Structures are given as structure tokens and as C-alpha cells.
């Protein structure tokens, strides 16, 4: 699977849970790797791209989470 597609899935997952449950990087890795049957390293690499591009950011609320940046 292309890295961009994985990134798309990650973004959708974060978008879907926005306002419901804050996701940790490990939650994303576990969910996406199981859903797409890929390794966690693949998920990490795609997540890194999203954060480097500024599409997702890390936030801290008594723990580190991955979220969509505020508008």
C-alpha cells in the first residue's frame, strides 16, 4: 500500500474521533496496522509525514496525543 494511502487512513481515523476520544500515536499504530494489515513501522512513517507537513500535530493534555491542528 502506498504511504499516501496509509496517511489518508490515519487522517480519517483522527478526524472521526475528533471531539470524541483523543488518540495516542500508539492507538493509531495499533488500529491502522490491524485494519490495513501492515507493520506499525509503516504506520509510523506515514504519521511522520503527516506531522512534518503540519496536517496533524502532537498535543499534550496529561499525555501526548495526535490531533488535527485548529483552524
Amino acid at each position: 500500500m502506498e504511504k499516501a494511502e496509509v496517511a489518508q487512513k490515519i487522517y480519517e481515523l483522527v478526524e472521526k474521533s475528533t471531539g470524541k476520544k483523543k488518540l495516542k500515536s500508539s492507538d493509531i499504530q495499533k488500529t491502522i496496522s490491524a485494519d490495513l494489515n501492515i507493520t506499525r513501522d509503516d504506520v509510523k512513517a506515514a504519521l511522520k509525514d503527516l506531522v512534518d507537513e503540519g496536517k496533524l500535530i502532537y498535543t499534550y493534555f496529561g499525555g501526548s496525543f495526535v490531533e488535527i491542528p485548529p483552524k
Partner: protein
Amino acid sequence: MPKKYETPLLDELEKGPFPSFVTEIKKAAARSDMAADELGQLEKSYRDKRGYWKHGGIVGVRGYGSGVIGRYSSLADQFPDVANFHTVRINCTSGFFYTSKFLKEMCDIWDKYGSGLTNLHGSTGDLVLLGTNTENLEPIFAEFSSRGWDLGGSGSALRTPSCCVGPARCEWSNIDTLGITYSVTQEFQDEMHRPAFPYKFKIKTAGCAVDCIASIARADLSIIGTWKGKIAVDQGEVANYAKKGMKIQEEIVNKCPSKCMSYDGKELKIDDDNCVRCMHCIAKMTKALKPTGEKGATILMGSKAPFVIGATLSWVIVPFMKLEEPYDELKDLIRKMWEFWDEHGKNRERIGELVIRKGMREFLEFIGIDPVPQQVKEPRRDPFFFWTEADLQK
């Protein structure tokens, strides 16, 4: 002209012969509105007997999930220059070695973009820059990274590893503390800057049990140098210590924690099989005693001050590990520990708390390390033993 606040309560803390943080903040406040508002807000905190800082939220520089700790004033109307007052962590060098040139450059950058207040070094070990606003974060990062520096760890991540000065300045070091710290820092950049753990994870390395970096009390992974051979005794030097007035029986022999030393007024004897390598005798009689044989480290885990169950010191998981470049055995162990934590840890549960909750048995089975007597921290308090199917078949 920066703002000025009346600070009668803080002024009390300038009295007396010792250096005062208030005096330092005042010096910074004479040049920086940020530092002035910091002082003003602190005085109000003293008056009202409560803190006015909030933390967390969205912070960091592009691509990083750690290294900047968001700090916000809850009195932004009153103290607008500390409305954002973020902490920046710069990854310290192994053993905290810097040139005076770098320190001057760092100060210039910080005077330009921040409050001018620093903290060398924070408890985690980083070179800490105290107080800047959100807009300045990217420029500060650019200044440091263009000089070859990087952010440290924060949040649910590997924290900046740190170590004692080790072989660079100390004859007691059994391991290359600096090399180990450098190597794990390079290896685990991803774990440091892209938080993916249940909570923080600290690695601290000391060259011997004197433990100048306090790894036994404040690291999820404590690496402490030790040796396998005997303690070589130079009886001539022992006699010199005695001649100079050292009370060898009282000061050395009686204080040996494993009671493995004896002294008849002439000869000092050590029963090395029972020595626990605590360093007490060696630190006191440096000229007379010297560790020999294979050098390596004891690997311990789990210390933290305000644990849910109370302050906890690290306990042994590997009594002796040889530590030589590229430190693969150590790195594999660390990865295995993280895997266990990732699988079973709850949010904000340190790895030590998890192992206490689950038990050493499950942890050791997972990381593939055999149980040995050195791992016993204290006698068990309950009389029950639960046999597994596998035990019963034996």
C-alpha cells in the same frame, strides 16, 4: 523601559548570604518584559498562595511532538507578556560538556527571543530555556538546529538521556557513560521526538554506584557501572590511611552494607563473594582499594518519586551486562521493555508501575530474562504462590 512591580514578599527571599532566584529574575526583568511579568505573577502567587500557570495544549515546532512545554498564564489580562511562557528543552550533551563559546551564543539567542532566564540543567537533564511566546518557537529552533543542536524530549516520550561525567573526568567509572548516552540518544530519536508511549521514559547512566546522576532514584531505566572481579587491596596504603587518623573499623568496616570486610589493625580483608559493589569503601579509601576484573553495568528499572504507591527506587533486572559499542544487547532490552509497556500500559502509567501491577514474573517472561536472586527487591509479604500449568508439569 520594562515594567516594574512591587514585590515585598519575594524580596524576603533575597535576604541572607546565599544566591537568590529572585535576584536573578529581577536582573532579567530589568531588560525583559516577559521576565518582569514573570516576577509580577510570582509575587501575586505568593500573596494569594496559589499558582497561576496552566500547561499543555498545542506546542512544539513543525514535525516535533516534544521539546517544548506549553505554559500559559491564567492571568493573561494582568500579565500579558507571560500569556504564553513556554519552556524550551535543548538536548544536553553527554555529561553536560559545553564550550564557553556555545554558552555565550545560547545566551544571546535567548536574550533575543526569550525571557533571558535559563535553568541548567532541568531535572530531566536538558538545557532548559524558561519562557518564550509561541511565535518565537520556530526562530529559536532554527537558531539552535543551524548550530547542530536539537530539542530534547517531553510528553509521553523518551526523555533526553543523561549521564554522569564518567570516564571523561572520573577514575571510578566502570563503563563509558558518555558513549552509552550518546548512542541511545542517536538510536532512539523517533521515540524522543514523536511521543508514542503511555507516559514518560527516562534513561540515566552512572559509571559506578556513587551514582552522581541519581539514576537509581529518577530513571525508568537506571544503568549503573559495576565490576565482576575482586577489590584489590594495597595494604601499605591502608596503613597510611590508618596513620593519618582514619578509623578503619568504624568508618569503613562497620559501614559495609554486606558486612564482608574485616580489619585486625594491620590487614584489611574483603570477602568479595559477598561484596555488593556499593562503592562505600572505595570512595573512602581511594588510594588503597581498586575494583578489578570484568567491567560492565547493572541494569535496573522503575524509580520515580510520586508513584501512586509512594516513592520507589529502581530494582535490578539484569545484574551484569557488558556494555560495549554498539550496545546492541542494551538496546534490544530497552525495545523489549517498551513493547511490554505498549501492550499492557495504561495512559499515564510508568513502566515501573505497570511491572508492579502485573508482577515481575509476567514482565521477565515477556522480555525473555531468567529470574535470578539479584532481582529480589524485598521479601514477599503474602504467603501464597500461584503455580502455572507449566510449573506443575515439571
